[in-house]
């Protein structure tokens, strides 16, 4: 009998368990058929590649469903249909990512490589200059130096304010509060703060500074620092709190049992143990606020020259620079120059954000407490 079964299997090339399945090549046939039909349909109303790809995908999913219903059964067909749809969702999600990155790279890279882009600001770059460079085909002048300086100063300022407040608050929540009313209130309001729309944070900072120093002079880098701090503090509290909570209680107890005071235990045992997670959380928070546009636009305004002083005069930042160059080209009749600068600035901003994200991952891995040292 055994030998019989074996030869049987060899003869048919499939086991009894696979009887009733559709042939392996069904998907290829469906795909080819869908592509042909889609091309034919589009030929009637005007062919384009994007439409062809979309129509082919739709027809493929539909024809796979129908052929599975016919060849197998409805349950398997439904399963296959949803598998295709889930995969399709993933492809759809990738499209904008690829498209954005491609746009930024293809337009922004030449601008970034233009001489002096990172080193010069927009002082003296008037519409006439842009017009000339576009007409004569020479490389676009002007750059992002002032915006880089502004973004850097504002972000550092926001970090300097947010990290101590956020870190200490999470220390209070994890180490000192004993689940009382006050700690519940803080947790609740930190939640509320996470939901503050960024433009509202900007409004608040602009208004607060206006009340403090008077209208006009309130437009400065420091106002933007305040706005970004409002956005950054809750992020820091949340991530730090999570990191402090995963520090095992045993370590705290070990330290107390050695006669070490609580504050020293926190500073020298708890925080060093969780420092990698805290640092990576802070880095991610920085990456988030450095791309914020609206709150900086309404607080620090716009500028064409480098300003190193957070407490005086308007200050440019990278996101606002992108926005201004896009919406209000320096030379309205020759917007290409401004557009190129905007995309180049976008490329710089994306690179900075990506580097910060990578740095966060690196910190989390590299500075985690060593598990083995043998």
């Amino acid at each position, binding site marked *: 009998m055994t030998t019989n079964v074996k030869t049987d299997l060899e003869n048919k090339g499939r086991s009894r368990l696979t009887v009733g399945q559709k042939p392996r090549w069904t998907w290829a046939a469906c795909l080819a058929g869908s592509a042909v039909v889609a091309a034919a349909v589009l030929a009637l109303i005007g062919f384009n590649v994007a439409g062809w790809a979309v129509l082919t995908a739709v027809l493929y999913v539909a024809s796979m469903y129908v052929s599975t219903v016919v060849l197998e059964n409805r349950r398997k067909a439904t399963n296959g249909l949803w598998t295709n749809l889930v995969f399709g969702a993933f492809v759809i999600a990738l499209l904008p990512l690829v498209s954005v990155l491609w746009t930024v790279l293809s337009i922004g890279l030449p601008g970034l490589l233009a001489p002096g882009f990172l080193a010069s600001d927009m002082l003296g770059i008037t519409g006439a200059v842009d017009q000339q460079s576009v007409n004569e085909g020479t490389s676009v002048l002007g750059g992002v130096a002032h915006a880089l300086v502004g973004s850097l100063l504002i972000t550092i300022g926001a970090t300097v304010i947010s990290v101590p407040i956020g870190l200490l608050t999470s220390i209070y929540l994890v180490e000192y509060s*004993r*689940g009382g009313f006050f700690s519940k209130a803080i947790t609740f309001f930190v939640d509320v703060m996470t939901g503050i729309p960024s433009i509202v944070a900007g409004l608040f900072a602009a208004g607060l500074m206006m009340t403090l120093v008077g209208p006009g002079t309130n437009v400065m880098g420091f106002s933007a620092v305040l706005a970004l701090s409002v956005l950054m503090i809750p992020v820091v509290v949340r991530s730090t709190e999570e990191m402090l909570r995963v520090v*095992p209680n*045993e*370590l*705290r*107890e*070990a*330290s*107390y*049992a*050695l*006669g*070490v*005071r609580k504050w*020293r*235990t926190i500073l*020298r*045992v708890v925080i*060093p*143990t969780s*420092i990698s997670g805290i640092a990576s959380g802070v880095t991610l928070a920085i990456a988030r606020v450095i791309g914020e546009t609206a709150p900086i636009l309404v607080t620090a305004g716009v500028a064409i020259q480098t300003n190193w002083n957070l407490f005086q005069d308007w200050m440019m930042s990278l996101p606002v620079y992108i926005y201004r160059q896009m919406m209000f080209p320096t030379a309205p009749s020759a917007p290409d120059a401004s557009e190129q600068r905007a995309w180049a600035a976008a490329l710089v901003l994306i690179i900075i954000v990506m580097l910060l994200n990578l740095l966060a991952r690196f910190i989390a891995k590299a500075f985690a*407490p*060593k*598990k*083995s*040292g*043998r």
Partner: protein
Amino acid sequence: MSKRIDAIDLNVYYGKFRAVADVDITIEPKSVTAFIGPSGCGKTTFLRTLNRMHEVLPGAHVEGKLLLDGDDIYAPGVDPVAVRSNVGMVFQRPNPFPTMTIRENVLAGLKLNGQRISKGDADAVVEKSLRGANLWQEVKDRLEKPGSGLSGGQQQRLCIARTIAVEPEVILMDEPCSALDPISTLAVEDLISELKEQYTVVIVTHNMQQAARVSDKTAFFNIAGTGKPGKLIEYAETSQIFNNPQEKSTEDYVSGRFG
């Protein structure tokens, strides 16, 4: 270097719940005392009151007196931190500080408290403590490696070294061998027998053979039922507890009839 402990009418509460009731016990200096009893009988809770570690939990408090060579450690104005540097503790699971090297772990009690100490003195403390914990030969060549890289038994002896580096009077041990393999357990038990030359050692254990092997006196704790407080049932020479217990429940427990 070694002090006597007297508990007088000691009650331990977690909030309103009385976890341990009416303990009267005298623990002699330079001896090993074992606390045995079924799970939840309050022996660990009582051990933690001996250096005020239970206060780390919210709502915990104590009634009664706990005298360390005659000084009430619960007297008003007494700093729990000062108590803990007199009464060290070793935990169930070895817990070396993961961010520190072996050397730093040994010096943790001094360094974390901000004491300045010359390198020569520090080296001396490290060697003395590690020798005292029978670990010196094994780690002397890798003092700068992370403490978490050691084996479980070595880590536990490192924790003991860390404890004796601050020169306490009393060492409390909360099931110090329950996370260790038999060979490491033997090493730690040998160490306990040596430690009593200098320190008052109190050990909580679930392992009755271990209590019989290492301790001079044994205290048996028990509870009447869930939600009832733990009580000290019998306290005597170890040989008497195991061979000729006075109480019925002690006899049932040491002969393995429950627990």
